[in-house]
C-alpha cells in the first residue's frame, strides 16, 4: 500500500462545527491504507478516521470479520493498526491511543489483499466448523502432516507485520526514580489525590496514559465543578500541581507494572506524538519507580453488551461515543441506537441528540426511571424500556437493528420486535473498575452485587484505591475519595498533610450506578444458533464458545481463558473478562464470585521491549574490560579472546599467517628464545593479618604455615564438596602478609568466597583481604633468553639461580620502573612474572619488547599459553575441571595435606564415593597419527564399532598440535584413566571418522624439568 499514490484529502464530514478539544486552526494530513485524510491537532487517529466517516479499521484474529472502533482508549479491542513505514513501522497499535501528527502513516492489518475484500474472511463462512479449541480435536492424521498444517496455521495467525527493516532507529531511555507518593491515573480522583498529597510537600508523581489529564471528565460537557465547566476545572488543577516543585506530572505515561515493595514500572511516550522528533530526545522512557505509597486511580472500563452482531463496525461503547462527540467534536453516526442496562448511557444519548443525531434508546430495564431518563425524554429522545438490540446487521458497517421486547435479563424475547435502520449503536453494559495494578500488587478483589463489578478489597502493598477503579463511579464520591487517598498516602509517607479535605461543589446529572444483570442477550434462537454474539472481540470468542468450554469441563476461569483464548488478546480482556465470567457462571448455574476472576499480571497495557532494554544494548550491554597494555596489542594486530568480561590477546598473526602458523611460531619462540605474555588479568588479592597463614591453610589444600618470606607456592582451592574451584600461586611478602593470585575468571569469586568464610565461619581469624588485581600490570617473560632480556632492560638485582631461585619473589627496578618479579613458571621455561604499578603497564611492555628485540622476544597470546602449559601437563581450572573434579582425579594428591586437621573440602574428599576407581581421571593422549589433532570435547570409547548409545570413558579437555614435541598432544578426563596407561582408546568423530590414541602420562615436554633454570 505504501507505494500507492495518495488521493486528495477527503472532507471531515463527521466533524461537528464546534466543540471538542481539538485545534481547528491546525489541520493535520495523514494516510490510512494509502488514502490521504485530514484531521486536527488534538485528534487521535481513531477520532480523525471517525471524523472522515471511516469505521472499518481491521480484520479479526480468527474469522477475519470486519471490525471498527469500539472504545476510545487503552481498552480498545478492535482498532489495531500498523503505524509508520520502513524501520519505523510498528504493528498492533490502538488507533484510539495514537495522537495524530502531520504525515502520520497507518495501515490496517491481518487482511489480504485489502481491508474491504479479505480472502481470510472465508473463515467466517466456516466459522461454525471452528468452535473454541477445534484445533485440539483435529489435524491429528496423518501424524506426518502436522508440520504442514501448522505452517498454514502459523501464517494465518499473528496480527501485524514487523518492521521491514529490523534495526530500530529510535533511542530509548530508562531511569530510576524515587517518590513519596505515586498517583496512577490523572482523572478526577487522581488529580485530587495528587493535589492533596502534593500540598504536604511530599514528592509526588502523577502519571496518566493519555496526552492530557482529566480522564472521563474531558468528555463530560454536562458537568460543572466549583462553578466552572469540567475542562476549566481540570486546567486549574493541573496549573496548581505544575506550580508545586516536588510534583512531577507525567502525561502519556502508562503505569504498567506493580511489583514487590512498591516497585512500579512506567513507560512514557516522549516523542511518539510528534511529526518532527528532536534527535536528542528518546522515543520512549522507562521509569523504574520506588514509591513510598501509591494511589491507584486508573478509572474504569465500560463493558459491551453481548448480542448477535455486536462486533460490527459502528457498534461502539456508549462512553466512547460520548468521548468522540464531546472531546473530539466528532459525531460517529447520524442514526444512533443506544442500548443499555444502566443510566449512564443516557448521557451519551443526550450528547448524540445535542450533536444532531437521531437517537433511539433501547433500555433493557423494564421500569427504569430517574432524572437522566426524564431529561432524555424531555429532549425528545425515544426511549424503549424493556427492550434490547437482539440483532445488529450490516455489511462492513452496522446498517440495521432488530429491537425486541425482552424479559428481565434479556434471555427471552417477550413481545414485539421492530427493525430500524441505523449507522451507529452505542452500547453500555455497566462499568468494570480497572483493578489491574491493585491485582498485580497482590491486592484482593470482592464482587459487588449492586454495581455488578469486582472492587478492590484488601491491599498487599502500601497502596490506596480511589475513584472509579475503587468502584466509586459517582463523580462526587470519586473526588472525595481521591482527596482522602492523597492525604492518607502523604501521611503514611511521613508528611503532615492537610486533614481538612476540600471537596469541590458539583453540578452533574444525578444517576443510579446500578446496572441490570443481563449478560447475554437472546437472539430468539436456540442456544448456539443464529449470528454470533461476541464476548472477546479481538480473539473472536463468542458467548457460545464460553458455553461450549463449560460444557466440555473447562470450568475454571483459567481453563476458560486457555481453552477459548478469551482475555488473552492484546487488550487482555479489559472489556470482555466480566461478561465472560458471567456467561460462564450462568452456564455452570453458579454465581460470578464463585467462578472467580483471574489475577492480573504485568503489563497493564503492552510495553515496548525497546524501552525496557533501553541503553543496555550494543557496547553497553555488558562492560568490556581491557588491560593497561591493550593499546600495544591492538596496534600490533593481535586477535582477541573473550575471557569473562575481559578481552585478552589471543594470538598475534603476522602478514599472511594462519592462526595455526602464528600460534606455532609463538609457542616455539617461548622455548627457543623468549616469549612475552600479558598476564595482567590474573586475579590478585592482598592478604594481611596475624592469622593470614592459618587462613590460607584452611582455604588451600596444602600447608602454608612454614612458607618462607619472599617464597612462592602453588595452591589448589576446593569447594566444601571437595571439587576444585580455583588455583594460583601465593607469595609470602611478610610474616603476616601474602600476595595471592587467582585465575582470571575466578578473581571476583575467590575474593567473595574468602570474605564469606572470614565473615561467617571464622570471624575469630584476624585477616583482611583487599583486591589488588588492577593495581598491578603483569608481563610474563618466558624462555631461555628471559634473564638476558631483563639484563638488557636494566635490572638492579642478581638474577642468578642461587640468589633468585625458582618459586621466589624479589622487588627490583627494571629500566627504572619499580617492579615485583615473581620467578614462577606456567611454561616450564625460565620465567619471570613482572608486576608493575598499572600506570606503567604499557611502559613495561614496550620496554621489554625493545630490550628483547636482539634476543628474539616474541609476544604470545592466550592460545600459545594454553599449548605451552599443556606440553607440561599443567591443568587449567575450568578446562580440565568442570566442578565435578577432585585433586585425586588429577593425580594431584601431592598437594592435598593429610596432616592438616581441616581445610575446605577435606571432609568431602573422605567420602567413600570420592575414591571409586571409575571416576574420571586426568590422562595424556598421543594420537597414533601424530599430526592428527583430536577436537576438544571429543569422547573416548574402547570399541568404536559398538552400537548406540556407546559406552563413553570421558572427554578430551585440551588438545593441540605441539611444535616443540612435533606431534599432536591432548589431555583428557577418562573413567579409571590412571590405571589405563599404555592402552589405546578411540574417538568417534561427528563425520563418522575415528581417531586412535594411546593413553600416556600428561607430560609431553622436558619431563625432568631441566629447563626451569634456563
Amino acid at each position, binding site marked *: 500500500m505504501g507505494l500507492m499514490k495518495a488521493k486528495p484529502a477527503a472532507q471531515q464530514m463527521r466533524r461537528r462545527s464546534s466543540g471538542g478539544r481539538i485545534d481547528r486552526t491546525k489541520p493535520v494530513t495523514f494516510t490510512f491504507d494509502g488514502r490521504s485524510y485530514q484531521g486536527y491537532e488534538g485528534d487521535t487517529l481513531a477520532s480523525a478516521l471517525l471524523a472522515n466517516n471511516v469505521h472499518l479499521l481491521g480484520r479479526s484474529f480468527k474469522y477475519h470479520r470486519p471490525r471498527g472502533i469500539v472504545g476510545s482508549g487503552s481498552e480498545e479491542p478492535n482498532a489495531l493498526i500498523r503505524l509508520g513505514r520502513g524501520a519505523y513501522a510498528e504493528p498492533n497499535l490502538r488507533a484510539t491511543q495514537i495522537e495524530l501528527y502531520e504525515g502520520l502513516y497507518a495501515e490496517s492489518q491481518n487482511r489480504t489483499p485489502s481491508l474491504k475484500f479479505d480472502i481470510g474472511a472465508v473463515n467466517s463462512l466456516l466459522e461454525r466448523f471452528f*468452535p473454541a479449541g477445534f484445533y485440539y480435536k483435529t489435524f*491429528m492424521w496423518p501424524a506426518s502432516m502436522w508440520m504442514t498444517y501448522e505452517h498454514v496455521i502459523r501464517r494465518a495467525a*499473528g496480527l501485524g507485520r*514487523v518492521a521491514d527493516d529490523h534495526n530500530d532507529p529510535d533511542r530509548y531511555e530508562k531511569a530510576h526514580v524515587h517518590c513519596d507518593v505515586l498517583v496512577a491515573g490523572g482523572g478526577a480522583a487522581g488529580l485530587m489525590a495528587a493535589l492533596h498529597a502534593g500540598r504536604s510537600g511530599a514528592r509526588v508523581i502523577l502519571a496518566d496514559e493519555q496526552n492530557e489529564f482529566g480522564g472521563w471528565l474531558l468528555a463530560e460537557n454536562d458537568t460543572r465543578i466549583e462553578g466552572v465547566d469540567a475542562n476549566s476545572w481540570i486546567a486549574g488543577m493541573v496549573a496548581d500541581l505544575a506550580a508545586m516543585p516536588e510534583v512531577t506530572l507525567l502525561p502519556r505515561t502508562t503505569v504498567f507494572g506493580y511489583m514487590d515493595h512498591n516497585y512500579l514500572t512506567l513507560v512514557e511516550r516522549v516523542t511518539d506524538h510528534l511529526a518532527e522528533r528532536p534527535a536528542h530526545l528518546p522515543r520512549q522512557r522507562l521509569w523504574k519507580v520506588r514509591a513510598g505509597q501509591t494511589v491507584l486511580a486508573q478509572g474504569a472500563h465500560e463493558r459491551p453488551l453481548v448480542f448477535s452482531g455486536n462486533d460490527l463496525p459502528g457498534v461502539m461503547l456508549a462512553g466512547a461515543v460520548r468521548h468522540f462527540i464531546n472531546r473530539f467534536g466528532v459525531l460517529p453516526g447520524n442514526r444512533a441506537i443506544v442500548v443499555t442496562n444502566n443510566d449512564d448511557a443516557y448521557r451519551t444519548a443526550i450528547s448524540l441528540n445535542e450533536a444532531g443525531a437521531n437517537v433511539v434508546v433501547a433500555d433493557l430495564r423494564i421500569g427504569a426511571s430517574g432524572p437522566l431518563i426524564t431529561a432524555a425524554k424531555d429532549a425528545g429522545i425515544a426511549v424503549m424500556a424493556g427492550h434490547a438490540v437482539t440483532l445488529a446487521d450490516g455489511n462492513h458497517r452496522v446498517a440495521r437493528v432488530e429491537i425486541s421486547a425482552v424479559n428481565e435479563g434479556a434471555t427471552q424475547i417477550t413481545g414485539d420486535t421492530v427493525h430500524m435502520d441505523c449507522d451507529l449503536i452505542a452500547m453500555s453494559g455497566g462499568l468494570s473498575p480497572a483493578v489491574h495494578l491493585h491485582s498485580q500488587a497482590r491486592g484482593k478483589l470482592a464482587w459487588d452485587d449492586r454495581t455488578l463489578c469486582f472492587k478492590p478489597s484488601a491491599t498487599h502493598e502500601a497502596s490506596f484505591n480511589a475513584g472509579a477503579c475503587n468502584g466509586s463511579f459517582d463523580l462526587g464520591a470519586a473526588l472525595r475519595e481521591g482527596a482522602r487517598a492523597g492525604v492518607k498516602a502523604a501521611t503514611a509517607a511521613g508528611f503532615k498533610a492537610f486533614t481538612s479535605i476540600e471537596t469541590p461543589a458539583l453540578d452533574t446529572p444525578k444517576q443510579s450506578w446500578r446496572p441490570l444483570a443481563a449478560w447475554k442477550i437472546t437472539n430468539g434462537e436456540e442456544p448456539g444458533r443464529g449470528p454470533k454474539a461476541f464476548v472477546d472481540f479481538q480473539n473472536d470468542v463468542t458467548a457460545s464458545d464460553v458455553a461450549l468450554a463449560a460444557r466440555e469441563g473447562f470450568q475454571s476461569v483459567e481453563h476458560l481463558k486457555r481453552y477459548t483464548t478469551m482475555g488473552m488478546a492484546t487488550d487482555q480482556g479489559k472489556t470482555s473478562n466480566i461478561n465472560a465470567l458471567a456467561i460462564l457462571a450462568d452456564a455452570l448455574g453458579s454465581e460470578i464470585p464463585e467462578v472467580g476472576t483471574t489475577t492480573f499480571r504485568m503489563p497493564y497495557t*503492552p510495553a515496548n521491549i525497546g524501552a525496557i532494554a533501553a541503553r543496555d544494548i550494543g557496547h553497553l550491554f555488558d562492560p568490556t574490560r581491557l588491560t593497561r597494555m591493550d593499546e600495544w596489542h591492538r596496534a600490533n594486530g593481535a586477535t582477541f579472546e573473550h575471557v569473562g568480561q575481559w578481552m585478552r590477546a*589471543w594470538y598475534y598473526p603476522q602478514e599472511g599467517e594462519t592462526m595455526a602458523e602464528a600460534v606455532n611460531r609463538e609457542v616455539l619462540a617461548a622455548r627457543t628464545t623468549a616469549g612475552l605474555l600479558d598476564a595482567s588479568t590474573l586475579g590478585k588479592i592482598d592478604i594481611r593479618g596475624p592469622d593470614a597463614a592459618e587462613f590460607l591453610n584452611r582455604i588451600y589444600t596444602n600447608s602454608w604455615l612454614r612458607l618462607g618470606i619472599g617464597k612462592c607456592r602453588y595452591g589448589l582451592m576446593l569447594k566444601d564438596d571437595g571439587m576444585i574451584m580455583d588455583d594460583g600461586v601465593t607469595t609470602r611478602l611478610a610474616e603476616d602478609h601474602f600476595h595471592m593470585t587467582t585465575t582470571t575468571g575466578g578473581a571476583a569469586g575467590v575474593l567473595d568466597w574468602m570474605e564469606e568464610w572470614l565473615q561467617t565461619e571464622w570471624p575469630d581469624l584476624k585477616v583482611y583481604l583487599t583486591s589488588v588485581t588492577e593495581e598491578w600490570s603483569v608481563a610474563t617473560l618466558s624462555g631461555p633468553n628471559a634473564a638476558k632480556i631483563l639484563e638488557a632492560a636494566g635490572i638492579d638485582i642478581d638474577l642468578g639461580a642461587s640468589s633468585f631461585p625458582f618459586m621466589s619473589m624479589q622487588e627490583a627496578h627494571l629500566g627504572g620502573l619499580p617492579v615485583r618479579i615473581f620467578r614462577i613458571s606456567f611454561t616450564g621455561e625460565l620465567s619471570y612474572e613482572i608486576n608493575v604499578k598499572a600506570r606503567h603497564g604499557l611502559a613495561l611492555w614496550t620496554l621489554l619488547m625493545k630490550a628483547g628485540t636482539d634476543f628474539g622476544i616474541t609476544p604470545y597470546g592466550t592460545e600459545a599459553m594454553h599449548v605451552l602449559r599443556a606440553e607440561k601437563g599443567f591443568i587449567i581450572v575450568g578446562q580440565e575441571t568442570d*566442578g565435578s573434579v577432585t585433586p585425586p582425579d588429577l593425580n594431584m594428591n601431592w598437594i592435598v595435606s593429610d596432616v592438616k586437621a581441616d581445610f575446605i573440602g577435606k571432609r568431602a574428599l573422605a567420602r567413600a*564415593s570420592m575414591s571409586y576407581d571409575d571416576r574420571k581421571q586426568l590422562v595424556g593422549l598421543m594420537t597414533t597419527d601424530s599430526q592428527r589433532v583430536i577436537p576438544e570435547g571429543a569422547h573416548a570409547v574402547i570399541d568404536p564399532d559398538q552400537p548406540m548409545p556407546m559406552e563413553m570413558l570421558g572427554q578430551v579437555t585440551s588438545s593441540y598440535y605441539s611444535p616443540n614435541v612435533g606431534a599432536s598432544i591432548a589431555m583428557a578426563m577418562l573413567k579409571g584413566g590412571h590405571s589405563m596407561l599404555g592402552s589405546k582408546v578411540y574417538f568417534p568423530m*561427528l563425520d563418522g571418522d575415528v581417531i586412535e590414541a594411546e593413553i600416556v602420562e600428561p607430560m609431553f615436554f622436558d619431563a625432568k624439568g631441566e629447563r626451569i633454570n634456563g
Partner: protein
Amino acid sequence: MASHQPDRGQRGLPGGKPKYSAFAIAKKAMNYHQDWQRAWRDAAPKDEYDVVIIGGGGHGLATAYYLAAVHGMANIAVIEKGWLGGGNTGRNTTIIRSNYLWDESAAIYEHALKLWEGMTQDLNYNVMFSQRGVLTIAHSEHELREMSRRVHAIRLNGIDSEILGPAEIKKFVPTINIDQSIRYPVMGGFLQKRGGTARHDAVAWGYARAADDLGVDIIQNCEVTALRRERSKITGIETTRGFIKTPRVGCVVAGHSSVIAAMADIRLPLASRPLQALVSEPIKPILDTVIMSNAVHMYISQSDKGEMVLGAGVDKYNSYAQRGSFPVPEHMLAAAVELFPVLSRLRMLRHWGGIVDTCPDASPIISKTDVEGLYFNCGWGTGGFKATPGSGHVFADLIANDRPNKIAAPYDLNRFRTGLLIDEHGAAGVAH
C-alpha cells in the same frame, strides 16, 4: 536410547470415549456443538484407591495415564488442589529437547522425546508437538569448547545434534543478528532438529482426557492436608474433601514438593525459585525454531498464535509467590534485542512467574523414600516440561513395581548421600 523404544501401552482411547476428529467436529456442528461431552469426568473422591497421585500437572497426569495404559491399573486418583495444569505446566515456555550432556540426563530426556513423538495419536488429542528444532548459541571460545564436548557426547548417545557456524545459523534463522562486533557475538551453535515446542495446556488436557478414558478419577479443587502413615508405611491422605485410603502415593507437585514432603517428615534437597517468562503481542511469523543462549540467559520461540515467547534464568532467592524481580526480564529483553533487533519495536504482552524446585546438581529426583509407599518426582528445575511424558512414564513404572527402572535409577534420593551426583550444574549444563 536410539535402539530403545518406550512401551506406550494401550493407545488412542481404548476406554471407548468418543474420538476427536475433523469428522466429529463437522458432525457436532450440525447440532451447533450442543452435545460435546466433558473432556474428563468431574470425579468425586472414592474412599479408596490403589494409587493416588498428588498433583494434577502434566507430570502427575502422565504418571496416572501410564499407570493405566502401560501397567493396566484402573483404581487411580489424581488429586489437584486447584485446576489441572495450573502450575508449571501452564507457566513454562514449552521447549522440548533431549540434547543433554550426561548419559543419565540424555537417557531420560530422550525417553521423553520419543514419547512426545506420537503423543498426539496416543492421546487422540492434538498437543501440537512441533519439531521445529532447538538451536543453542555459543558466544565465546569457552562456550564453543563446551558445545563440542556436549555434541560429541550427545551423538555417541545416539541423539541427533549438529554444530552450525554463524553463516549456517543466519541461513537457518534469518532474523538473528550475527554481527561479530556485538558484545556477545554468535560464534556458533548446536541444533537438535527433533527438538521443538508443544501446546503446554493441551498436554495436561490430553493426558487428563485419556487417563479418564481408562478409568482414572481426576479430582480438582482438592487439597492434601496430611499424609497418614502407620509405622513407616503410607495408609492414606487427608484432603479438604475428606480422607482417602491408599497404599501408594506419588507426589508430583513441582514447586511445593518440600511442603508435601514435610507432611511425612521427609527433607528434600530442593530450593523453590521463581522462573519468569513473557510473551509479546502476536505478529506474523518471524521465527520458526527455538533459540537458546546461556551466556546471556535468554531463550525464545514464536508460538502458533504468533506471540514471541521469551524466558530467562531463575531468580536468586527462594519464593512461593509466583513472581520474580524486574531486573531478570529486563536483562533478558536486552539480550533478546541484541540477538533479535526486530524485538525492539514489539511489545511485552503478558509476563508471569512459575515456581521451580531445583536440586543442587540441577537434576531431578525420581525416588522411593524412607516411607514405604511414598514416592517423589520433583526437582526438575527448569527442565520439567520437556520431560513430561518420560517423567510420567518412568515414575509410573517406579510406583507400579516399587523399584526404579534403568532410566530412573540414577535419580534416586540416595545420590546426595553417596555424592554420586548428575552434575548438569557443575558441568555448566545447559539450563532450561
